[in-house]
């Protein structure tokens, strides 16, 4: 799923500084699962914003709403009757959400309340880690299911670099060296020859380097 972190409160307050009434809209997709933009987080942020502005003597009216998914026009439509009743709309979805909203309602302003970070999952309660960089041509079968593109700090296809130490990446002891894991697993399982192969330079056209991407499923296109 997509992992995001909430933006610092000051940044959000700055965005809505001139507003008297806003809509705070969450999403039941990924951001609910990673506890950043679901119902609970919408309620919390809304009350923090209200209280802060009340203290300033300039009350802010905040209405709360949570859509099924902000990345789906069908659910985005649910704001049709109300979207123009606010000075701005603050979205707690990933970066896709506020964009789908502004495409649907060009005359309203939409602000992102979260920083969208990566595709990954929870490795333990409260900790999420990156797993995929969306390169568009998956090659993790060469690496026993571990992605060096997303998980090696240098995206090396032939690691580990000379900075790998004690299973940690040279960049930080908080980052595991995925190449250490790949190599150890291959060696333990006696499949070292997999790593003696020279991989061709990657074709990055399927990644973001080829320009913004789209996916077309002919059978679904009417």
């Amino acid at each position, binding site marked *: 799923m997509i992992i995001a972190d909430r933006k610092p409160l000051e940044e959000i307050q700055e965005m809505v500084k001139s507003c008297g009434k806003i809509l705070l809209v969450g999403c039941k997709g990924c951001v609910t699962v990673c506890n950043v933009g679901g119902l609970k987080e919408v309620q919390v942020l809304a009350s923090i914003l209200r209280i802060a502005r009340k203290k300033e003597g300039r009350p802010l009216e905040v209405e709360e709403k949570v859509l099924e998914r902000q990345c789906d026009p069908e659910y985005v439509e649910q704001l049709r009757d109300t979207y123009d009743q606010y000075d701005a709309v603050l979205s707690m979805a990933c970066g896709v959400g506020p964009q789908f909203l502004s495409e649907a309602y060009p005359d309203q302003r939409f602000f992102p309340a979260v920083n969208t970070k990566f595709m990954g999952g929870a490795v333990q309660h409260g900790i999420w880690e990156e797993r995929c960089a969306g390169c568009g041509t998956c090659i993790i079968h060469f690496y026993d299911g571990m992605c060096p593109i997303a998980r090696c*700090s*240098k*995206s*090396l*296809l*032939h*690691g*580990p*670099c*000379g*900075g*790998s*130490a*004690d*299973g*940690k990446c*040279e*960049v*930080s002891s908080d980052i595991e*060296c995925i190449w*250490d894991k790949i*190599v*150890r697993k291959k*060696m333990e399982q006696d499949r*070292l020859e997999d*790593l*003696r192969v*020279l*991989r*061709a*330079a*990657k074709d*990055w056209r399927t990644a973001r380097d080829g320009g913004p991407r789209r996916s077309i499923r002919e059978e679904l296109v009417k």
Partner: protein
Amino acid sequence: MSENGYKSGSNLEKVLKAGHFAFTGECGPPKGANVDHLKEKFEHLRGKVDAVNVTDNQTAVVRMSSKAASALMVQAGLEPNFQMVCRDRNRLAMMADVLGAYALGIRNMLCLSGDHQHFGNHPQSKNVYDIDSMQLIAMVKKMRDEGKFLNDEPIDVPPKIFIGAACNPFADPVDYRIYRLANKIDAGADFIQTQCIYNMKRFRQFMKRAVDMGLAERASILAGVTPMKSARMAKYMAKNVPGMDVPEELIKRLEGAGKGKMAEEGIKFAIEQIQEFKEMEGVAGVHLMAIEWEHKVPEIAERAGVLPRPQVD
């Protein structure tokens, strides 16, 4: 291979091919366009080494480009070993720089992944890593031997470059390092310069494996030496440089030398190392990285008995 039987005809290649024990040095370009400063540094190395490595934004700190500094060295009549990292350039810029370097008279190059930009003075920058060091080696080999770009288009005058690669025998996972070295040699590395060595015992074991696997025959392995200036430097490297093995024993030896005498002790250790490398099976030379200590190179070379440098035609 060209008509004269050399891949590049660089001085380093000739010295190695003639069977001499090679001795290379290193010079970091200035943090600015100060050509006088650069010249002052590399002049210390004139006649004392077979080639001078010119670092490429080393430790991710911006400096004069390694290609320009290498070209200035060529103009001055010294032989550079042009370093290139994968961090700052995509394949287009890399191939362009290889051609440009060759056009400017550069004949050796060292292919590196490069330290992550997090270490340097522009940690905010984007990293490239379009290809990695293994693929860079293979790409330069293809350009040289097949006369083709990565996309198979022909090159009008291919770059005859002597291809180098780095190797850190002490990084983790240690058991894999010899295979990574083998991969680099398979990819096309003609010579290898190792990370600086302090743990001689471990390096002996590593070299034994390199010899047993036939690697030392297929590429010239130059052992990396960096003289320690003080016990503090040794401790710092032990603690803060990932993949560096500095034995406690060496730190004690430097401390034991006492204030004011540690630098000399560091040099002594380096000289002992060079002498051992001269005898060690599979070691084709030494790469001396006297960081910001270029003026000490003549003395170290003299005392290690590697002077005069051979002249091969």
